[in-house]
């Protein structure tokens, strides 16, 4: 009996970790999309998640729109914010460098955070879970149905992106910009449009992540920065710019946090993941699945 509860406990940590990790993974994928196409690290990525959660609260709970309308409306709204980020903060910069771009996205994230505080205030908001809150007992672990939705959406996002970048003309055009923007524009690809599109795409993924995580963790105006830092770490862990890397990095990061806080010390929950990231950066800077060449090329 004792052993069964231990496995139950470990299973609980694993499932919680993978759920949190799925959110990190989705944000990290958003990082990778923008980074691949534009070489910008978008520190406002976490704000998309926050906006997704809070906009859904307004549309679904406050305005009473049915899920089927509120969901796409939220994603659309946040996508527009993503395009605005590109237009207002990234494109006007005359001499872009890694540093100015980081600062520009940081500045935009401050604006979004302030706007969110103005609109929704400082209280955390809840959303109804997609299929109720009756926990499922599973080998001694207690699982919220919403956890499956989170992991399910990660799988859905991963599959859709694989198809989008592998099979569609638009996706291939975006990948071409990632490889070589000059060559891409020579073959008639509108590079600027692709840049906007990459922001739109990752904003929409962030919005989805926000909508599905809110029933588990609630959402308030200042959650973006923490998510952005964690997901940036996840993207680094897996190898910046690699989609499978971002997903694996996110899942690993979530699991480390969950196991670390459960088994060692919950006080140091935030430190465990970062120590692992530091270790990876120091000993294998390209990340677990990353390309060494790429990590050496980037500079200020």
């Amino acid at each position: 009996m004792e052993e069964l509860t231990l496995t139950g406990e470990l299973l609980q940590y694993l499932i919680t970790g993978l759920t949190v990790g799925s959110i990190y993974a989705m944000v990290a994928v958003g990082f990778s999309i923008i980074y691949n196409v534009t070489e910008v690290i978008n520190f406002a990525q976490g704000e998309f998640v926050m906006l997704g959660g809070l906009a859904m609260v307004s549309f679904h709970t406050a305005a009473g729109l049915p899920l089927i309308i509120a969901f796409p409306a939220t994603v659309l709204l946040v996508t527009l914010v993503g395009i605005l980020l590109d237009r207002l903060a990234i494109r006007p910069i005359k001499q872009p460098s890694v540093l100015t771009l980081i600062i520009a996205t940081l500045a935009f994230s401050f604006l979004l955070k302030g706007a969110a505080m103005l609109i929704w205030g400082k209280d955390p908001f809840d959303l109804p879970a997609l299929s109720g809150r009756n926990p499922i007992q599973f080998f001694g672990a207690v699982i919220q149905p919403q956890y499956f939705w989170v992991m399910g959406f990660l799988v859905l996002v991963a599959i859709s992106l694989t198809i989008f970048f592998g099979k569609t003309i638009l996706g291939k055009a975006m990948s071409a910009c990632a490889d070589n923007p000059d060559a891409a524009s020579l073959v008639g690809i509108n590079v600027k449009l692709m840049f906007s599109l990459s922001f739109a795409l990752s904003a929409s993924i962030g919005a989805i992540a926000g909508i599905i995580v809110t029933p588990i963790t609630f959402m308030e105006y200042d959650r973006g920065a923490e998510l952005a830092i964690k997901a940036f770490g996840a993207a680094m862990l897996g190898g910046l710019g690699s989609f499978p890397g971002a997903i694996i990095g996110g899942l690993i990061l979530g699991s480390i946090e969950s196991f670390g806080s459960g088994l060692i010390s919950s006080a140091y929950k935030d430190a465990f993941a970062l120590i692992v990231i530091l270790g990876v950066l120091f000993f294998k800077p390209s990340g677990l699945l990353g390309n060494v060449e790429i990590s050496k090329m980037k500079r200020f």
Partner: protein
Amino acid sequence: MLHIRKRAIAIFFVIIIGFPWIAEHIPAITHYPDVMVFAGIYSLITIGLSLLLGYTGQISLCQAAFYGIGAYVSGILTARYGLNSWLCMAIGMIFSGLVALLVGPASLKLRGHYLAMATMAFGIIVSVILNQEVDLTGGPDGMTGIPMLSLFGFEFDTTEKYYYLVWAFVFAAFIFSVNVVQSGTGRALRAIHSSEAAASAMGINVLRFKVIVFIYGAMLASLAGSLFAHYLNFVNPSTFDVSFSIKLIIMITLGGMYELWGAIIGAGLITFLSYEWLHFFEEFEIVVYGAILLLVTIFLPKGLVGIPGIIKRWFRS
């Protein structure tokens, strides 16, 4: 950019010395010397950051961590063990320097985003430790009972005395840094900024110079931390989290990171904005920071110190 502006430094020196006297006579700003103490403390950190980020081109998102290490080394050793404050200040600087020596070489091999992530991770880890080691640091509630500074019986017990102490340190750091920038070391740093490959082809030990600047910045931040702790007689960990590291980046971006003057101007402006002028906006001051930061990055890539150059070019054409 490189000639010593002796006249500018002298004028600045006089203004700083005269400021408390002027402030005393203008009712609305009598408390400004108090704000200037903080501006001075932040200037110490931004001067180091300007050398690291503006001149050498290496981002650091962990200056707040060294600032915190300085504050806590001073706080713990003086309040708990009753050691001499100046000795503790020196111990803090040496300790921060050693930590920087430990973290620096591995971090500074990384570039761009990777360096940003590594330094940010280190900064967060330090801030978690400050929050969680309650027996040592007092945890999130902070620690009290840090004594005032005194030197041979002379107590730095008024705002005015502390003002002169802090700004004396700022001047020393500024003049030392100006000299560094103009020396061979400064040329090596700028060479690293333009091209690491070219710099190392010229025989510059790139990593060594980066680590030296990193250590220098860490020690200045630690000094600032000690001064902060002795001024408030109280420290708590939220002062030293990553958002402060980002605020430091805002300071030098606003002032202009490619000149040491920018470090002081940016630190001063942001300090006055957040302590005085943005009270009206209360919690929405973050929106103002966002707007300032965005406008400066887009329209003034060299910060406020770049304005004279823009005006000159405008008149010529």
